[in-house]
Every structure is written in structure tokens, then in C-alpha cells.
């Protein structure tokens, strides 16, 4: 290919990235705008919208809901994911392939379909929407990510290391906590982080499942957008970006340090 061809491709790639990230950059930039309109031109630099955000009760409530929901989702999803992975990798479960496919399926099914299906199912059972139901929904579609990450790690942990621990006198449970869990900890943390960010980020399922009066951060933003584009939303967007991008990066860094220390 000619030098010109490469230049065109490079230019095209840059344009694609600009298209993807420019809006994000604009939101972050405008969140520091002193003007009372959430748009250009910038009239000065200010933390004003972040302060307003911190004083907005509805948003604070939404944040608390999102964080609690995210933490619980991460906790439950990770626990279930670790147990499911152990069962699938370490024990001969009859129909393991089928179970595995079923557990991974929520990734493949469009979220709207999943959301509606769960809702109809609960209607059929006569159960009302509640926070527990919302949590349940989040666990269902974060579980596959946890399982994929943890399973991949577990497969790489040699069985004879666990057998050695048992031969030395550790019971199966002691072996799990002394050997297996520490060895798969980076994957478990990564899985938990995935679950948290996915839950924190989610809007489709949440809109379907949330009971009246409960808002998460994404649904709160969505509701605010219906009235007007307030500069507060830019500030909120910036906080969301920091949380959903920064947390996984932090997690990856922690995982790397951990696995270095354990000499893997």
C-alpha cells in the first residue's frame, strides 16, 4: 500500500476516536463551566455545579441507591460466580456444558428481552416490583461476567497444588481458603469490579425493574434530561465517568500488584 493510503487510514482512525471521545471530553469540560447554561461558550472555571450536585437530595439518594445496589450485586454475583465456577471446573457436574451455557446466556440475550421476560415472569407469579427484585435482575446479568473471569483463572490453577495441600492435612474447606481462593483472588476482585460497574452503569434493566420512587444514578440522569439539560448533568456525567472508568483501572492495578506478590 502507498504511503498516502496509510495516511488516509491513520486520519480516519483519528476521526473515529474523536467521534467517540469528543462528546465525553465536552461533558467533562462543560462540567467546570461557570455559566448557568450547560453549553458553550465557557465563561469561566468553577466547581459550582459539583457543589450544587452535592446539595441535590434526589441525586444523593440516587447515588446511595446505586452504590448499595452495586455493592450488593457485586457481593452476591461474585459469591455465586465463584461457587458456580468451582462446581463447573472442579467437579463433574452432569450436564456441565448446558449449565455453563445457561449461565453465560444473559450476555447473549438483548437486555430489553431479559428485562421484559423477568418482569412478565414476576407478574405471572404475582410478585410486586421491589428493590430485591431489582437486585435480583442485576445479579442475573452480571453473573456471566464474573463466571467467565473466575472460570478462566480457575482452569489455570493446577489441581495437584490443591491435592498437595490436602495431603498435608488441610481439609477441602481449609484448602479452598488457604490455596484456591488466594490463587484466584485477582480474578475474583476483577469479577466483583465488573459486577459493580455494570450494575452502576445499567439503565435498561433498571428502568423496567425498579419500584416507583426509587432512582439509580442513570435513571435519575434520564429523568433530569426530560426536563432540561442542566449543567448539573454535566457534573454528574463527570462523576460517573470517573467512577466507571477509574474503578476498573484501579482494580486492574491492584490485581497486578497482588499477582506479582504471589509470584505468578
Amino acid at each position, binding site marked *: 500500500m502507498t504511503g498516502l493510503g496509510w495516511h488516509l487510514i491513520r486520519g480516519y482512525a483519528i476521526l473515529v476516536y474523536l467521534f467517540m471521545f469528543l462528546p465525553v471530553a465536552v461533558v467533562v469540560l462543560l462540567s467546570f463551566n461557570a455559566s448557568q447554561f450547560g453549553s458553550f461558550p465557557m465563561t469561566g472555571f468553577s466547581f459550582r455545579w459539583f457543589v450544587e450536585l452535592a446539595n441535590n437530595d434526589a441525586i444523593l439518594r440516587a447515588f446511595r441507591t446505586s452504590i448499595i445496589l452495586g455493592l450488593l450485586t457485586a457481593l452476591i454475583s461474585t459469591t455465586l460466580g465463584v461457587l458456580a465456577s468451582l462446581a463447573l471446573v472442579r467437579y463433574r457436574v452432569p450436564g456441565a456444558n448446558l449449565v455453563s451455557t445457561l449461565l453465560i446466556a444473559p450476555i447473549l440475550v438483548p437486555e430489553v428481552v431479559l428485562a421484559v421476560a423477568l418482569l412478565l415472569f414476576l407478574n405471572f407469579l404475582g410478585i410486586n416490583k421491589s428493590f430485591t427484585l431489582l437486585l435480583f435482575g442485576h445479579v442475573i446479568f452480571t453473573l456471566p461476567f464474573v463466571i467467565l473471569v473466575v472460570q478462566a483463572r480457575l482452569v489455570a490453577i*493446577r489441581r*495437584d497444588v490443591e491435592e*498437595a495441600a490436602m*495431603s*498435608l*492435612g488441610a481439609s477441602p474447606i481449609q484448602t479452598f481458603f488457604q490455596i484456591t481462593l488466594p490463587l484466584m483472588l485477582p480474578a475474583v476482585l476483577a469479577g466483583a469490579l465488573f459486577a459493580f460497574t455494570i450494575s452502576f452503569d445499567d439503565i435498561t434493566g433498571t428502568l423496567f425493574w425498579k419500584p416507583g420512587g426509587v432512582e439509580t444514578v442513570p435513571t435519575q440522569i434520564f429523568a433530569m434530561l426530560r426536563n432540561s439539560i442542566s449543567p448539573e448533568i454535566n457534573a454528574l456525567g463527570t462523576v460517573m465517568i470517573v467512577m466507571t472508568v477509574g474503578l476498573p483501572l484501579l482494580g486492574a492495578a491492584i490485581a497486578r500488584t497482588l499477582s506479582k506478590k504471589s*509470584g505468578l
Partner: protein
Amino acid sequence: MSSVHLKNIVKRFGSFTAVHPTDLEIPEGHFVTLLGPSGCGKTTNLRMIAGLLDPTEGEILIGGRRVNEVPIHKRNLGIVFQNYALFPHKTVAQNVAFGLHYRDVPKSEIPGKVAAALELVQLPDVGERYPKALSGGQQQRIALARAIVTEPDVLLLDEPLSALDANLREDMRVELKRIQDKIGVTTVFVTHDQSEALAMSDKIVVMSAGRVEQMGTPEEVYNTPASEFVANFLGASNILDATCRDVSGGTAQLEAPLFGAFGVPAAKAGGVSPGPARMVLRAEKLLIQPPGTTAEGQVQAEARIETVDYQGQTVRYFLRVGDTQLQAINMIDERPFEEGAAVTAGFRPQDCAALPVEAPR
């Protein structure tokens, strides 16, 4: 320290029988090797002793006590695995100390025991390192230290040397035997390497396709193989058709087409009765000499060298006697014979063994 007894053990995986009825007694303090080709059921036997597999039939006794229902972590064993299986997230000292935490060892005594074990495997200074920072041979020594520091009743080793390179393997072989002698623990060693088995064992159990072919001291299995399989698996043997004329007075009279009539000690012709038989002659016992050599007490035949496989101190010849090919492994005296040379091949009758003709299997 305890004896181990496999009592009429059978192990099936689905419809496949990995271990056919086997009865095996390993006396207290002995070093017993399970020897056989890959897939013959050695690991399966070892894992049943360990409690990592349940026998389909039969009993396992350790120290006279039935342990079928005792889980692995309560059997007080030491196991050394082929790939070391050290805990990668623990230091060497933590690895070695691991088993001590599950026994009634006062905390204050643990560092001393760990140091003594590291001393025994001649790696006193690596306690603070992680396994990854050690060579394969060092890792295997640590695995051994970890397995014996708890003073197990039985030490089980599954091909512990096969991941090491050749030189190191021979050093570790000597080392392992020295340590076993010193602590005197009952040891079951699994290998497919006949020289390891011959060098280290008090008793060798030769296995094939899930069955025990022979159990005996290294000399017994080497000099008086109980089957053609054993004769072939332990070193190179020439196995030829022969006819037994008579067994009497401690001698079995054989007649072989190539070598004529000669008598082998009846002790080396167990189960042979007059009629068709097989003669077994180890390649090292077939001596290649200049043509026309006559030697007192040798059975001889004229032969021609076909291939010379030079190995330094020894040489392996493939030679032809009549229309039969034989092999001979001889020490080299000055220079090996050349390919195509006419020679006299001979052996002493007492170096030959005889077997009954085996039913085809």
C-alpha cells in the same frame, strides 16, 4: 511409619478396568517402586493409597488399619508430585511449614523443624524466596522437604524426577535415596524409568496393563524375569524359542536352534517343564568375540554384525545368527567390531533364563 497393604484392589473407570485385582504388601520402612509403561495403572494405584481415588473393590490398609473411608487429609501422608505442586503464593518456608499447622506442633517449634527439613534437602538458605525463583531441581527438593517435615506414615512419589533433565535426575536419585534411608519412611515410588527403579528400590513391582507382572528385589526382577514383558521392559533381552528336554538336579536342559543344547539353573527356569519353552538372554550377557574364539563354559554361535550403536563405554550390536537377529551390549575393549564383521557370539549358560511359553493375550 507404617506398612501399606492393597488387598484385592480393583479400580474401574466406567467400563474400563485400570487396575485388575491386585494384592500388594509394602512392609514398614521399605522403598517399593511401581514400574511400568505409561498407562499401566501406577498413578491410579498411588492415588488410591493417597485417598485421591476410591477403589472400586478391595481394601486399603495403612499400618494395619482400613483407610478406605478415611479422607486424604487424615491419612498422614507425604506426597511428591511430578510437577512439584508448590504453593506459588507462599514462600519456601511457608510451603514447608504448611503441613505442620495441621498437626499438634507447637508454634514455637515450627521454624526449627522447617530449617531442619531444608537442611536435609541441602537448601538451607532459600526459605524467604518464592518457588518461582528456584530451579526445577530445587523446587523438587522443597517439595520433598514439605512432604517429609510432617513425619508422614507413608511417602508417595509419582514420577518425581521425570520433569528434571538427565544429569540432575541422577543426582536427585542418589539424594532421594539418601534421605529415604536416613528417615526410614515407608515409600512408594512410581516411575516408568527402569534404571531409577533398579537403583533405588528395595522391591520393584513391575506392572503392565493394570496387572502386577512381578514383584521382587531389583536383582530378582532383573535376573529372573517372571514374564517376557518383564524381560523386555527391564533392559534389552533376546527372547528365543527353545525346547526343554528335562528338568532335574537343579538344572533345566534346554535346546535352542542356534546354540544347541545347554543347561540353565532351575532357579532361573521357574515354571518350565519339558516341551516348548522360551530362553531369555540379556543383551549384556551375550559376548561378542573375534571369530573362532573358544572359551571354556560358553555356548557359542557364529554371527555377523549388522549394526553398531556406539555409546562411549559400551556398544550395542545388532547381529545376525542364521536368520535370527540378536542384540548384544558389551563393554568396549580398545575398539568396537565393525559393521559386517564375522564374529563369535557366546554366553555362559548360567546367565540365561527360561520361561514357559505364554498364552497369547
